[in-house]
């Protein structure tokens, strides 16, 4: 196991290097000029050029990349081109908001998806399966920003039950207030995840129900409930572990649109601002952070596999 962890962590470095090159190249190949995003008509040419120089944007792209890499190796993710604040500080500042929101959304989605997926798989083509399928189709097809606006309109404007924006009421600093603000964005995100998770669990359940151990349990007279939730569930956990591992990257960047619509002060809205201003140090920082989490998530998923199904460890 230790060998596996060391090997996978060693693979992380070239992977991140590759990600950083691709990310940097994509930003630089995109049409646009970061300086132009804050130039106003009454700025003089010499001021514009001086700003370009001070940001290092008058250097060739490869020089800019090497300089960024040098900073990174010394533990510095650089400074935002727009507000000149350290990128790492900005990410750390906003990480709790995004991670908290995404963790709640993913947790809620998993809690709901397991029973729904199992029930749908066990009742294939019956009305309960069709109903659950319908919900998942809606979750997959409905744009989340549209759902968000609709829910704000209903629960904030018309019913006045929940706030429409932000993470807290101004001047109020309580966990309950943050939770109240988080309900709508959490639900919107969870709805999106739920649809995907249910589909996976359903198809996995259908596959498992054909296995011999299920027939044996039936022959022993085990109840449907026992078969599903005691025996099938164990096997169905594997795709969930994979999905959760892959969702680790989403903890940082998965809520860009939802955060923008709800004015949730997380990394997603920071990323959106960076995209608009072509703020490459911030974009690179967010991408790297997300990549590290994704890689670690997959590693954790692999480790979790061996606990969920010891045969996998043996096969390695």
């Amino acid at each position, binding site marked *: 196991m230790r060998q596996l962890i060391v090997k996978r962590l060693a693979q992380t470095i070239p992977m991140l290097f590759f990600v950083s090159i691709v990310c940097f190249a994509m930003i630089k190949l995109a*049409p646009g*000029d970061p300086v132009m995003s804050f130039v106003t008509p009454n700025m003089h040419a010499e001021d514009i050029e001086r700003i370009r120089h001070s940001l290092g944007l008058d250097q060739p792209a490869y020089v800019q990349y090497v300089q960024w890499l040098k900073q990174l190796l010394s533990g510095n993710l650089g400074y935002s081109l727009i507000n000149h604040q350290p990128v790492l500080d900005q990410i750390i500042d906003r990480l709790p908001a995004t991670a908290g929101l995404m963790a709640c959304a993913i947790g809620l989605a998993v809690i709901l998806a397991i029973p729904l997926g199992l029930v749908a798989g066990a009742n294939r083509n019956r009305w309960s399966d069709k109903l659950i399928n319908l919900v998942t189709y809606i979750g997959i097809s409905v744009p989340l920003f549209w759902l968000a*606006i609709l829910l704000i309109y209903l629960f*904030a404007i018309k019913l006045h039950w929940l706030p429409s924006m932000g993470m807290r009421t101004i001047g109020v600093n309580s966990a309950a207030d943050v939770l109240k603000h988080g309900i709508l964005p959490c639900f919107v995100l969870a709805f999106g995840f739920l649809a995907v998770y249910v589909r996976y669990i359903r198809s996995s359940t259908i596959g498992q129900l054909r296995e011999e151990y299920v027939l044996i349990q039936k022959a022993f007279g085990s109840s449907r409930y026992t078969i599903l939730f005691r025996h099938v569930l164990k096997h169905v956990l594997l795709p969930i572990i994979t999905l959760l591992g892959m969702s680790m990257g989403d903890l940082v960047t998965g809520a860009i649109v939802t955060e*923008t619509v709800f004015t949730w002060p997380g990394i997603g809205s920071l990323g959106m601002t960076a995209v608009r201003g072509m703020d490459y140090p911030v974009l690179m920082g967010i991408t790297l952070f997300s990549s590290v989490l994704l890689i670690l998530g997959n590693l954790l998923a692999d480790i979790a596999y061996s606990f969920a199904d010891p045969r996998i460890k043996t096969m390695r």
Partner: protein
Amino acid sequence: MVMSKKWSTAIILVLLTALITACGSSSNKTTPSDNSGQQTETSAPKDGGNLIIGVGADPVILNPNYAGDRVSLTIDQSLYAPLFQVNNGKKTYYLADSLTASEDSMTYTLKLKSGLTWHDGQPLTADDVVFTINSILDEKQNSMFRGNLMIGGKPIEAKKIDDLTVEFKMPQAAPAFEATLVQLTPIPKHIFENEANIEKSTKNNTPVGSGPFKFKEYKTGEYVTLERFDNYFGGKPHLDSVTYRIAKDTNAANLALQNGELNINYVSPQDAPTIQGTGNFDLMPYSEGRLSYILINEKSDLGVLNKKEVRQALGYALNREELITAAYLSPEYADPAHSFLTPDTLFHTNDVATFDNDAAKAKELFQQAGVTKLRFVVKSGDKTQESIALYVQQKLKEVGVAVEIQSIDASALNSKVYGGTSTDFDLTVAGYIMGFDPDAYSILFTTDNSSNYSHYSNKQVDELFQKGAGEADAAKRGELYTQAQQLVAEDAAIYPIAYTKTIVAVDKRYGGVEEAVLKPVVIFEDLSKIYLK
């Protein structure tokens, strides 16, 4: 089976929407929540309360020497008092007590009010004004306003005469200096004097200003809160605090406004009826001193847009009133524009040549030049730009010119249009707010100047701007700029559409709006006058 699933999805969506709409209509009868902007009958000013203003982004930097974005400028207006302000031709002194120019416009003397203090209690004196000017001029400090303080390539000189007096020496006659000085806001010397890089200083995170409200808290991505500064020289502000709440999504901001989570916010003409319908807001359209125009790229590889007849043909093909209605929905939100100078600018005249409403003439001129196709670039998602482009497309089709609309994202558009080298587009929509002195416009219309995005060139116009910049006699200056307006209009260098207005929705529970004075870019000139009724 697949079809039935699709149909089921569609039916559920319709039902969901219907349910929400039904809830909406039924709950119209409910009373608004406590914070949703109920009207009160009393209107006498009283002290206390908080005001929440919606802003579209985080502030870039809370230091007026570096702020160029609308949000930072709006917040800075409350944090940092200006020396003086000019709004629609009316000058109001704030930190300054007077500003006098010598007859030859070579020397300006600024007198400060006595007893001024910064938010931390330190005295605000001539030293702070001189420090501000010198730090802007210091190349190492990297202020984006340095070019404004260079006249004829040489820096102006600021000299302290006494604690309350500063003398500005111009390198040459500079009658437009007042329009430069109006943009400058002193920053505290005692805070920044030892900072090697003021722009990146962490002291900008806890700004110390001199305005009616002092910094209290900034939660990134959420809000900036300022609290009342009791020693404000203009009198103690009425409100306890002002919060600038960040709402990046326009739809969400409108919903928050309706829900009473914002008290003041910009509103687009399209959303104005909805906000008005709540009965909780006064909608206030006001002029921003902004011109919206069609930019004609004379550098286009078509090779004909440098001919004024072709540019005039564009004007002949259009109807300005129709265009304004298409773009801004109502003439209430935009005044027809003819001159490149906005109405709040000195020597503005709208009595200049226009080329409108003559399709036959347009067709003839386009045919003579062999123009059959034009490329119109617009910012994707910008409804106003898209409406203008669609209108132009429709009108030019009538005169035999096909318009290809290219919708591109903001970064790409900025680079293409304002980068100065693109030849692969012909038309776009642009706008500017340049201030009250016509000298500021030279950067837009003189040959090869940095913001001359049309690449327009007319030696006579260059000469008129040059003379105007150094002419101390106001009457003579007026003549020069009137001529410049005539020439630019005759050359059809741009197609001026409208002097646009901004609409601000103000919660009816708040008073003092007139005294606070609506001001371009920053919403209010002096927020200390706003009170809760």
